[in-house]
């Protein structure tokens, strides 16, 4: 089930912010199923994740996830985000505010020009509503539910597509501490159950301790600092960051 290299990433892009330009040059390969992208703010973590998902295009690079090449600028190959079949969870979840929890989860299941109806039943949607304990909120809108429920709705919305891998941008940042702890374990169990490669961005060292098989430390657009392949079974916080 585990491919030889779950992640094979090499990405270059010149990032232009209002005042600074900096060159992002991120390269890492990893056979680990759960990789954490770590580093100070502005290091280019989210940009890296967006390029892996195909939301932004790199200037040059190659992305292979779970044995599938998704982008290779030297071969003029760049799959669209639609074709990549990667689940991407945004930091603030990006749930569709005009759709209910059920419609959000069912969103990817109807391919046409119309959104799934409020009452449509689908066993795949019911499965995720049940396993994330969201049944009671199925007809609520995103602004009517709690942060933890939003996070699980976003996760369910992505998982229902049976993605090839999970990309999570600070999945717990918007939540309070006790909730983080339980959702972290939930995510770990879920990953073990689905055997999906998982790449997540975090600032939180507890996330690393719980979830990381391998840590990629990013600083000013480059992979630096912490050596790879060394972060198994972590029980103390890592190097100090922001």
């Amino acid at each position, binding site marked *: 089930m585990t491919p030889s290299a779950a992640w094979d990433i090499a990405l270059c892009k010149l990032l232009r912010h209002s005042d600074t330009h900096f060159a992002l040059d991120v390269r890492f390969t990893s056979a680990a199923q759960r990789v954490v992208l770590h580093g100070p703010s502005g290091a280019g973590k989210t940009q890296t994740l967006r390029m892996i*998902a*195909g*939301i932004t295009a790199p200037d040059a690079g190659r992305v292979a996830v779970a044995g599938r090449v998704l982008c290779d600028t030297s071969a003029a190959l760049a799959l*669209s*985000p*639609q074709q*990549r*079949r*990667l*689940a*991407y969870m*945004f930091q*603030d*979840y*990006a*749930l*569709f*505010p*005009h759709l209910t929890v059920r419609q*959000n989860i069912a*969103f*990817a299941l109807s*391919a*046409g*020009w*119309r*959104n799934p109806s409020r009452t449509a039943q689908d066993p795949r949607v019911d499965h995720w509503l049940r396993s994330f304990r969201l049944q009671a909120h199925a007809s609520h*809108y*995103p*602004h009517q539910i709690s942060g933890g429920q*939003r996070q699980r*709705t*976003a996760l369910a*919305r*992505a998982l229902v*597509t049976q993605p090839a891998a999970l990309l999570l941008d600070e999945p717990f940042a918007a939540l309070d501490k006790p909730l983080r702890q339980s959702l972290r374990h939930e995510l770990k169990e879920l990953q073990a159950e689905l055997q999906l490669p998982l790449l997540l961005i975090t600032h939180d060292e507890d996330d690393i301790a719980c979830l990381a098989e391998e840590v990629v430390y990013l600083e000013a657009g480059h992979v630096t600092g912490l050596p790879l392949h060394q972060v198994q079974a972590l029980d103390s916080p890592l190097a100090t960051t922001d």
Partner: protein
Amino acid sequence: MDAAWIALTLSLKVAGWATAINLLLGVGVGYALARWRFPGRDLVDAVLTLPMVMPPTVLGYYLLVVIGSQGVVGAWLLEHFGIRLIFTWQAAVIAATIVSFPLVFKAARAAFETVDPQLEEAARTLGIRELAVFFRVSLPLAWRGILAGLLLAFARALGEFGATLMVAGSIAGKTQTLSIAVYEAVQAGQDDTANFLVAITSITCIAVLLSAGRLVPGRVLTRG
């Protein structure tokens, strides 16, 4: 009073067509300006806003230059299809469309700019094709703002006078819209007709504005 009803129906027909055309054009242009960054974007926006600030007679003159029988497009249409646009109700539609276009595209651009691009990106990562992303995410979230702009544009098209008079003239029962009929009635000293026409125009405009007021985003959708 039959003439008044004919004028009202014609006005509604012209304003309805102008609004329908602007729904397509204004939403398309508004979306493009909200989402694509290209050099000269501000200039394009300014030029497209011109009809809102220029005197309608100036617009009417430009239109004559373009679609008049001697005009660039007008001469071509006449030569190849035998179509003479000037002094038809279709010319009135063109005038009303241009005059009310800025109201639609401005409202559409502003409405699309309030839609978080992340939501569109999320839809893409979920495998939804580009056009479907527009119809399932962008448009529903911007719809109220666009609708408010469309109603204002409808009201503006209904009241259009200057440009319409220049390109469509004032042919009773054919191109004489409500606002032109008012002018003619006053000129001819037909006070009863004028009063009646003014009353229907006012009622129609108030009704449109009231509906627009209800649609201006009062319920702000919070992001999930």
